């Protein structure tokens, strides 16, 4: 990246270190969270299908990445996030949340414990600055942001691990789900974790740019499909994975979002939002994040009204929506009154004045077979 990257005037987009490779593969770019990101290469449906049937590689370097290290790192992290990260053995990783004092979700994150005293956290790009400020406030000098100096590639699909086993390291084949480790490769280090955001098996790999570029090249040569943000969204939606800023945000709490499983209260450790979450945990829900499927061919989209099918009155708005290429149906999410959120409940979604019949289903919309 050139010197102007850090001196960009407000509004100018940040460029991926591997941008030229994406351009050479025919990427169409679009702005996302202040970055110029590949939206698609061959096409969203082809890319989505490649991830479901073979393997795809995404450049997700826009995600915030920071290290927290030292003897107090675990406790410092415990104090800012909902999951009891002190339970993580070295080499393990876990999903977690940052909540605010009202119990709302400020971001969803992933925490990787590489060593007893070395932790990596990955943040959503849209919240990267606020999230790092939170980490800095808790950990001070122990925190170091590495977003600018690293590249992150997600390799996802039924063939992803086998291909990584060949091009990166046979150790990829012994990595258990959600485990993480640092691998030596071509004289450098690649941090690999068996994690992802597609509903497929696979791994996310972090390395400094020239090494990551070499890894990208090997993966493309091995036939892995380059995949952009367009397919990233349809893949995660089919897998019913929430997107912060859409399905979860500072006004939604983990319990109504179905994320109570990453709130650890039993260890008694204090963390931001704990008091509010203790109160919310046992309170009956006013609303619940539900998953909707269109009963006839239609494209559900965020913002479309969800209606009572008889009265036509509005119950909610879709928080996310798409036509899922693998399930071949319109799918979406919305916060519904709990008594309307039971699987099988018939509802309607208004699309350009027409009431399209939908049904509540149990998540996910798509589940991989293995």
């Amino acid at each position, binding site marked *: 990246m050139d010197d102007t990257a850090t001196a960009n005037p407000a509004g100018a987009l940040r460029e991926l270190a591997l941008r030229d490779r994406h351009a050479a593969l025919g990427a169409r770019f679009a702005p996302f969270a202040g970055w110029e990101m590949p939206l698609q290469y061959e096409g969203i449906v082809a890319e989505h299908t490649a991830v479901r049937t073979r393997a795809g590689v995404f450049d997700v370097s826009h995600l915030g990445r920071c290290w927290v290290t030292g003897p107090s790192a675990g406790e410092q992290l415990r104090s800012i996030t909902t999951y009891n990260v002190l339970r993580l053995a070295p080499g393990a990783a876990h999903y977690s949340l940052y909540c605010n004092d009202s119990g709302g979700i400020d971001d969803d994150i992933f925490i990787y414990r590489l060593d007893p005293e070395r932790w990596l956290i990955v943040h959503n790009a849209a919240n990267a600055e606020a999230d790092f400020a939170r980490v800095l406030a808790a950990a001070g000098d122990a925190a170091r942001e590495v977003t600018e100096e690293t590249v992150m590639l997600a390799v996802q699909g039924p063939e992803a691990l086998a291909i990584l086993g060949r091009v990166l390291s046979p150790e990829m084949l012994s990595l258990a789900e959600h485990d993480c480790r640092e691998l030596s490769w071509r004289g450098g280090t690649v941090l690999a974790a068996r994690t992802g955001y597609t509903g497929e098996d696979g791994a996310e790999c972090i390395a400094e740019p020239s090494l990551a570029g070499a890894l990208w090249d090997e993966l493309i040569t091995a036939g892995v499909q380059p995949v952009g943000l*367009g397919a990233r969204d349809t893949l995660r939606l089919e897998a019913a994975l929430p997107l912060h800023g859409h399905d979860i945000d500072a006004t939604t709490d983990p319990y109504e979002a179905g994320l109570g499983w990453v709130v650890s209260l039993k260890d008694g450790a204090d963390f931001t939002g704990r008091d509010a979450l203790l109160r919310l945990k046992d309170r009956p829900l006013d609303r619940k994040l539900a998953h909707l499927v269109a009963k006839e*061919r239609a494209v559900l989209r965020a913002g479309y009204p969800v209606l009572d099918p008889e009265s036509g009155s509005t119950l909610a708005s879709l928080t996310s929506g798409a*036509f899922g290429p693998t399930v071949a149906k319109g799918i979406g999410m919305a916060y519904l009154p709990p008594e309307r959120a039971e699987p099988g409940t018939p509802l309607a979604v208004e699309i*350009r004045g027409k009431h399209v019949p939908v049904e509540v289903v149990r998540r996910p919309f798509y589940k991989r077979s293995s």
Partner: protein
Amino acid sequence: MEIPTHLRFTSDHEWIRPEGDEGTCGITEFAQDQLGDVVFVELPDVGRTLAKGEAFGVIESVKAVYDLFTPVSGEVLERNESLLDHPEKVNESPYDEGWMIRVRLTKPEELDALLDSTAYQGLLAEA
């Protein structure tokens, strides 16, 4: 990009194939490429009368929704029902299997105001 020479075009990247006092309409190769993967097409009922420039339907890509505008005034005689289940035909075959509606022209003189293939090619070259 080869532009079929027997068609007429609008600056909105629709085409019409005139056939006597009827015409078949669709969107161009350029349009489908710009849209990306088409996942839904909404077409007007047979019998509906359309005025030139009126929105006759909707085409949805993965990321966005767009209106379809009629190149000429006419009455809808037929619509391509196969696009409901196979909207990808618009991407795969925009001038042939991806056709959208067939109309009876009520003002055939409107054809003269449309772009011929050379003029449409010129429009694309400037884009």
